[in-house]
């Protein structure tokens, strides 16, 4: 009885794997074609202001172009993040400077990079599409790279001492140490930050694909420009089509890329025992069992791995202090270059700012105050609903099963894409952008708080909750002595991420092309956007400096002390 059944099931398994092989093969071919098509398009004659069709049939091609841009920008970000983090973590002399620079770069909004990046790229490739495309890619890159670099750096700094010593005593080469210790240790952080970064990339896609720079009009074919065109001409059907396409791409990416990546990265957890709840991904499972990917693994990955990790045979044990010599020379050259470049740029910036009117400065500070208020308000509103909801979900297994996937889908919808819809509603109700921008910030940031609170609530040990029940804590007492301290470290993480997101969102939220006109409100974001539009580099520079200073100050004065508090007093482990 069991025999034929067994036979059939193994047969089906076979067919499956053949199908998977065919799919993997097709995917590789499609990938090669995509690269060729992209290259052809990029190498073509430049059309900085392409005509954007509002027909839904144009969407697949637009989605493809946007995806290519995002993909290239992401690969660049990954490479940069790993290199930057590695250098900062392994060179004590430059570490402090590199981390401070990262802190500042992180606080500069994407749009502030726009003029410089765009003009230099166009100057570099004046006749090819490549110039404009690279400009857009680098803009997307500046929106996603910093937190990834920071994550990799802090992963490297937190490698347990004994693991480092194990590599040292066995005299791993720098490459072996990187491939077998440092990179694996940083992988989980990189994967999670990649997800956050790419989500941020979608957020800014509209700004990165279509913008005005002085009297230049840049329009690159893509989902972002499609949505923006549809929004500014008030084409509701177009908005819905564009939104649908974007959500489809995001959901596909989530299933085909991020979930397998998360499931794969479980392998790099630093846990002593196997955890019960592992993330699973059917796609990853199928990939692992396909012959094509096995072949690739065996023929390409394994030999490469072998090459990277195995040192050349040693005749005599090598002594140290040769590479550090070379490192010193490189360091000296870099230092000299910095010593020339930094004062030069400072003088240029100072000259530029000299022409600034007092009134403009006052206006900038007022705008900063307005944006600051909006960011604070959006964080407050988000916390008000997300903390109770997150705790309820985290404490209730059954609720969590239903609510978590729903929230994840809701979170993956980019706020900018929804914004036209929200704005339409607000305009009908008679509200302005002053309130509308808070709503947009909320759309983008509340999820960080919610997810972190859920994670925090789940991490509170059952014994503590039972103790609270046994001692008959009142509701207030339960919140004060158990729940709030328990979720505190997670809440701080969520708030930090959310506030970063809110500042970035202010750029898009406070200044909007809509139905043929520009909607704007008082705010630093609006000022940066309009300065970019009108090519006013003085105003752009001063607004950027004010925003960066504001963000860095808030980081130093508010978030960092809270982090310390969370790390020292409110830790539940150990």
């Amino acid at each position: 009885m069991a025999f034929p059944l067994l036979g059939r099931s193994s047969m089906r398994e076979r067919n499956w794997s053949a199908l998977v092989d065919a799919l993997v093969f097709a995917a590789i071919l499609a990938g090669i074609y995509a690269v060729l098509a992209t290259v052809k398009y990029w190498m073509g004659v430049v059309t900085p202001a392409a005509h954007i069709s509002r027909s839904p049939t144009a969407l697949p091609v637009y989605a493809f172009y946007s995806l290519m841009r995002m993909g290239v920008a992401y690969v660049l970000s990954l490479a940069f993040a790993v290199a930057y983090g590695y250098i900062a973590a392994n060179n004590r002399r430059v570490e402090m400077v590199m981390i401070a620079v990262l802190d500042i770069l992180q606080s500069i909004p994407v749009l502030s990079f726009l003029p410089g990046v765009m003009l230099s790229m166009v100057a570099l490739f004046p006749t090819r599409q490549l110039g404009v495309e690279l400009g857009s890619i680098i803009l997307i890159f500046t929106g996603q790279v910093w937190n990834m670099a920071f994550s990799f750096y802090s992963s490297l700094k937190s490698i347990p001492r004994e693991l480092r010593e194990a590599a040292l005593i066995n005299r791993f080469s720098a490459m072996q140490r990187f491939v077998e210790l440092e990179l694996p240790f940083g992988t989980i952080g990189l994967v999670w930050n990649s997800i956050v970064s790419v989500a941020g990339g979608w957020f800014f896609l509209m700004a990165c694909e279509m913008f005005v720079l002085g009297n230049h009009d840049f329009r690159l074919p893509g989902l972002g420009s499609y949505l923006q065109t549809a929004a500014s001409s008030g084409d509701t059907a177009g908005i819905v089509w564009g939104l649908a396409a974007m959500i489809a791409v995001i959901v596909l990416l989530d299933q085909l890329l991020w979930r397998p990546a998360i499931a794969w990265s479980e392998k790099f957890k630093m846990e002593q025992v196997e955890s019960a709840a592992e993330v699973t991904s059917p796609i990853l499972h199928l990939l692992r069992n396909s012959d094509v990917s096995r072949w690739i693994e065996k023929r390409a990955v394994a030999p490469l791995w072998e090459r990277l990790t195995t040192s050349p045979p040693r005749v005599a044990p090598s002594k140290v202090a040769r590479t550090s010599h070379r490192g010193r020379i490189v360091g000296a050259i870099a230092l000299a270059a910095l010593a020339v470049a930094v004062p030069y740029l400072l003088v240029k910036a100072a000259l530029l700012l000299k022409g600034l009117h007092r009134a403009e400065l006052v206006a900038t500070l007022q705008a900063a105050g307005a944006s600051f208020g909006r960011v604070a308000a959006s964080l407050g509103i988000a916390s008000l609903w997300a903390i109770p909801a997150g705790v309820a979900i985290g404490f209730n297994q059954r609720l969590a099963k239903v609510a978590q996937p729903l929230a994840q889908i809701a979170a993956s919808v980019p706020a900018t894409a929804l914004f036209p819809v929200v704005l339409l509603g607000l305009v009908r109700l008679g509200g302005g952008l002053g309130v509308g921008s808070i709503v947009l910030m909320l759309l983008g940031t509340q999820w960080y708080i919610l997810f972190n609170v859920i994670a925090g609530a789940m991490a509170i040990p059952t014994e503590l909750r039972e103790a609270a029940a046994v001692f008959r804590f009142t509701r207030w007492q339960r919140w004060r002595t158990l729940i709030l301290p328990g979720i505190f470290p997670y809440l701080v993480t969520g708030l930090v991420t959310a506030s970063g997101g809110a500042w970035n969102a202010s750029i898009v939220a406070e200044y909007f092309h809509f139905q043929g006109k520009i909607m704007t409100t008082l705010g630093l974001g609006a000022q940066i956007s309009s300065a970019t539009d009108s090519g006013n580099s003085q105003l752009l520079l001063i607004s950027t400096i004010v925003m960066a200073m504001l963000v860095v100050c808030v980081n130093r004065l508010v978030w960092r002390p809270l982090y310390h508090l969370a790390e020292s007093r409110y830790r539940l482990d150990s």
Partner: protein
Amino acid sequence: MTPTEEPIIHARAIEKFYGPAEARIQVLAATDLSVYPGEILALLGPSGSGKSTMLRMLSGLASPSSGEVLWHGQPVVGPCPNVSIVFQSFALFPWLTVIENVEAPLKARGIAGAERTKRALHILDSVGLDGFEQAYPKELSGGMKQRVGFARALVVEPEVLFMDEPFSALDVLTAENLRSELLELWDGRKMPTRAVFIVTHNIEEAVTLADRVVVLGKNPGHVRTDFRIAMPRPRDHHDVHFLETVDYIYRVLTQPDLVPTPLPEPEAALAAPGAARAKYPMMPHARPGGIAGLLELLIDREGRDDIYHLADDLAFEIDDLLPIVEAASLLGYIHVKEGDAEITGEGKRFAEAGILRRKELFRVAAERVPLIRQINRALASKADHSMPADFFHDLLDEHFSDEEVERQLETAVTWGRYAELFDRDSSGRFFIPEETPQPAGDAAGVR
């Protein structure tokens, strides 16, 4: 085997300190130590005596602040050419399989493909991990993980094998098992390693394994005793000589001021600077409440127990318990003999008394402690019954470091306050409180 042979590793006056010259924190005082071929050397000492620092300097992981480490007579920079370490936390790479973990050091030495796999499989087989090659560390039990740790250390055929408390993260039975397997490999000459250096806090483990035991003292770390154990292995834990050796090490560890009398044919102990200094009886830093607690525990155990077991049962670090034991012994509440603590009649009375009675009893007992007695007499002889703290500082500072003087006085005040003998005011001045009760009988009469 003989010390006349050339050492593999020779540390010459190595020191470890941190911080600038004016506020230097000395971890390890200048120390000489050698690792000879053919020996298992066990390094013991209380926490904070620099055991781990010593291991890291000898293996070349860390460089000494001053002095030098010689490998076959040559100074080393970076890790010693042919050593490995077995770590307390195993330090396996969780993303590599068992065999990949074991192959990693071979890769670093440039050994390719088939040869590497062959060696790794061979060593896995010899530590009993046959069949687990493709498992990930997280799928293994603690004991199995440490076997991987051993395999990874042994696969490069190290000349010296370092072990940093390798068994302390394992349960008792597993640790016992691994220890005897290690000895089997060593005594059966199944591993090419020429010397083993093990850091441990477990005295019995040291006596079970070692050919030579070095005990470190602390503040700063220095060698207190260094001797050989000539018993054949496997060693019987009930053997008289075994027990004597355990008790001897025990006594050295429990009495930080004792200049160890060489018991079992010791090698010349390398006297540490300052070791001879502390002749003045030191006050152990224990609180009266802690002493009472210990006595109550002893009563529960029919009045006596092995201190070592007591610490084990309480999951105490032994050097956390020792000051309490010493204090109780100083007060005449317990008798300590060869590692056993036995409660005295006086101790029993103290433990069973109520709080007021306890204070009275403690007052009498504390008179036996020289420092308490001296402070009390000095205060009583003054008309205003008070003295500046500097007076007592001067009394002590030729015997102890500044820091230790402060700790001594701190403890004396804690005891004096409990006994209601004397106290210290906010300016640091010592005084006898106004309502200090007269001798015990009168006080009882008044109330």
